[in-house]
């Protein structure tokens, strides 16, 4: 069996088959759960995508980065701006759809990654951590510098494109009811909200002001995502609102031309469910990232990264360029971060400095350290942990009648303490510890990755 996979490219085929099977299974799971679960799946997949990059950067190449939240911001903003302003793709002239924005977000991620990686490759541990810390705080602040284009402090609402099947701009009529000034009267233009569509936080608190309020059930996800800048807790996410979103498909079905409900009480199968679609997108992106990451990590490039991490002088002597290895790790992780950022923007229907702040960067670090710094599986487990723990704490808090002040901060307190404990006692995180346990039981040396 193993010998079958040994022919050149065999590993590629093996990885592809593996990822496709996983993709298929998760998509099936995604189709069979309610929208709240879809929403959680989307978040886990989004986190996993970004953290695949963290595994490569922090775990394999040994560069501790706090800036991956900022790199996600690059992806998110590229997605938002291109989807808000483009009706056709520049130069190519073809009609725009969401995939183009994803592609541009990816390119943007790689370019920024190369740029930062070029600087970072020269730096030792704490200098690099400090630089990326500067990124985490400084990049989101760039939005303030260009309020016209990037929406400033209040960010940009994006109302992309979720008709069934295609990934194209929203149909005109959906927006006719929109209350955004300057939009409703202009029926001839394709109703992609332009810069005027930026809504101040106050406006966003009520659903009525949201341009696509009646178009997508994702609308509720906006209000909570806007204000606080602390993304470590999911309380900022509309857990409750998202669950309420399912009924709202029913309630607003009059406005949704597409939903000819066949009278069945089964809401989940009735028509287009935005959370499910988003989760499908997130899963697909995560699987593509996983495929790329698997091939890199388990191939020659993975050995190069580990060699540079363990002893860059020895690596250089054996003909490996440490600088190149470090830059490439940055570029790959930046690509994944940008893709995750673009997905995140769509899950939130929003981009803003708060959503991509230091908190997001820190949560990526937390997830990858807890899951297992140098394991791709660890990234997925880390993603699950980031989504599950706040919900778990919330359920405890409800049962125990905790004060909000305690409940809101408990997840971060746990994360912080866990990170310290993991670093001190089990540097391999959950995956590393399990591997160690297995190898102890079977009395074999632990294998890498």
């Amino acid at each position, binding site marked *: 069996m193993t010998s079958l996979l040994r022919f050149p490219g065999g590993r590629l085929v093996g990885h592809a088959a593996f990822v496709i099977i996983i993709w298929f299974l998760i998509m099936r799971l995604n189709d069979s759960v309610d929208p709240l679960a879809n929403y959680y799946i989307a978040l886990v997949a989004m986190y996993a995508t970004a953290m695949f990059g963290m595994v490569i950067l922090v775990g394999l190449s040994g560069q501790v980065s706090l800036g991956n939240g900022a790199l996600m911001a690059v992806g998110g903003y590229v997605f938002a701006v291109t989807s808000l302003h483009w009706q056709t793709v520049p130069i190519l002239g073809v009609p725009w759809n969401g995939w183009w924005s994803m592609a541009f977000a990816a390119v943007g991620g790689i370019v920024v990654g190369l740029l930062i990686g070029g600087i970072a490759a020269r*730096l030792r541990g*704490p200098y690099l951590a400090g630089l990326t810390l500067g990124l985490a705080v400084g990049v989101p602040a760039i939005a303030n510098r260009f309020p016209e284009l990037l929406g400033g402090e209040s960010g940009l609402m994006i109302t992309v494109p979720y008709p069934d099947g295609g990934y194209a701009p929203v149909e005109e009529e959906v927006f006719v009811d929109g209350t955004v000034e300057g939009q409703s009267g202009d029926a001839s233009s394709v109703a992609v909200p332009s810069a005027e569509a930026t809504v101040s936080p106050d406006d966003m608190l009520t659903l009525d002001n949201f341009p696509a309020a009646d178009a997508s059930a994702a609308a509720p996800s906006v209000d909570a995502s806007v204000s606080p800048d602390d993304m470590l807790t999911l309380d900022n996410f509309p857990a409750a609102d998202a669950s309420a979103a399912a009924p709202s498909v029913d309630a607003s079905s009059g406005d949704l031309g597409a939903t000819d409900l066949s009278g069945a009480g089964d809401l989940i199968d009735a028509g287009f469910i935005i959370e499910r679609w988003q989760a499908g997108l997130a899963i697909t992106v995560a699987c593509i990232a996983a495929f790329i990451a698997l091939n890199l990590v388990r191939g020659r490039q993975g050995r190069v990264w580990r060699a540079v991490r363990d002893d860059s002088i020895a690596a250089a002597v054996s003909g490996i360029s440490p600088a190149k290895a470090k830059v490439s790790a940055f570029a790959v992780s930046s690509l994944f971060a940008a893709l995750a950022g673009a997905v995140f923007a769509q899950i939130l229907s929003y981009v803003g400095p708060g959503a991509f702040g230091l908190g997001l960067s820190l949560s990526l670090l*937390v997830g990858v350290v807890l899951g297992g710094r140098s394991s791709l599986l660890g990234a997925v487990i880390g993603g699950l942990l980031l989504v599950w723990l706040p919900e778990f704490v919330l359920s405890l808090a409800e049962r125990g009648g905790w004060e909000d002040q305690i409940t809101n901060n408990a997840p*971060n307190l746990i994360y*912080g303490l866990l990170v310290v404990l993991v670093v001190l006692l089990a540097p391999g995180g959950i995956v590393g510890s399990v591997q160690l346990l297995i190898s102890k039981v079977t009395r074999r040396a632990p294998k890498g990755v």
Partner: protein
Amino acid sequence: MTSFIDYLIGGVSNGAVIALMAIALVLIWRATRVVNFAQVGQAMFTTFVALTVQTVTGSWVLALAVAMVAGAILGVIVQFLVLRPMRRADTSGAIIATFGVLIALQAAVGMIWGGDAQAYPQPFDNAGIVAFGRIWPISVYDLVVIGVTILLVVALSLLFTRTSIGLAMRASAFNPEVARLSGVRVSRVLTFGWALAGVVGAVAGVLVAPSSTVSPTTFDILLVFAFTAAVIGGLDSLVGAVALGVFAGLVISLVSGLSNSGNAPVVALILLALSLITKPDGVFGHHKARAV
């Protein structure tokens, strides 16, 4: 032109606070080759302690003193529980652990005092001083901030050059093995260094608090500024930390004054990136990096 100079003068007290936080980072870096990213978390915690003391007693001086003691204790706790048990080889781990402490401390602050921004009472006159027929862009409070900073810097330099513990600290930083062979109890000296850094950070927190509000994450940006100053200064150099800290304060004040304060983080990032590109070991750093 007047406004340019005004912004510069107004930036000095800002810079003083950044310099103090940078000193706290440098103190620990020199001793343990760890950048304590949790420093602002510790400072935030002690600033809330000070706020509580000041609210209860109304005394700014008492609040400052309590914060300093709390800063020392917190520094010792962090060093003892987190950094001391760390394997020396795991540099990534040390960095990650300090961020773990930062996250936990910010959450703890949020739990105890709430996540909302709170005003810190202004202990001195904060209006511009009127003298020589004009209003100067500097207040009594600014002068207190600058004065306390100078006092602390002088005290620190005396400590390092004139006292036994100062010599022990420098020796332990430069070559821990030779220090141990000379009979210096290096681990105690390191703990003292963490306490000292905690005190300096606590003072920075209490000094900066009245000019902004305090919330668990308010000081994040201060960390970036302080780190920038410390790095450009060479991380090893107290003189560099002070000089570049004040310089960073001036630049931030200028940028904030001439455009808007939201741009300050971007400027810090640009400064940091430029300095790391041109001089990865800092302006005041050693001519060559010591192999660690």
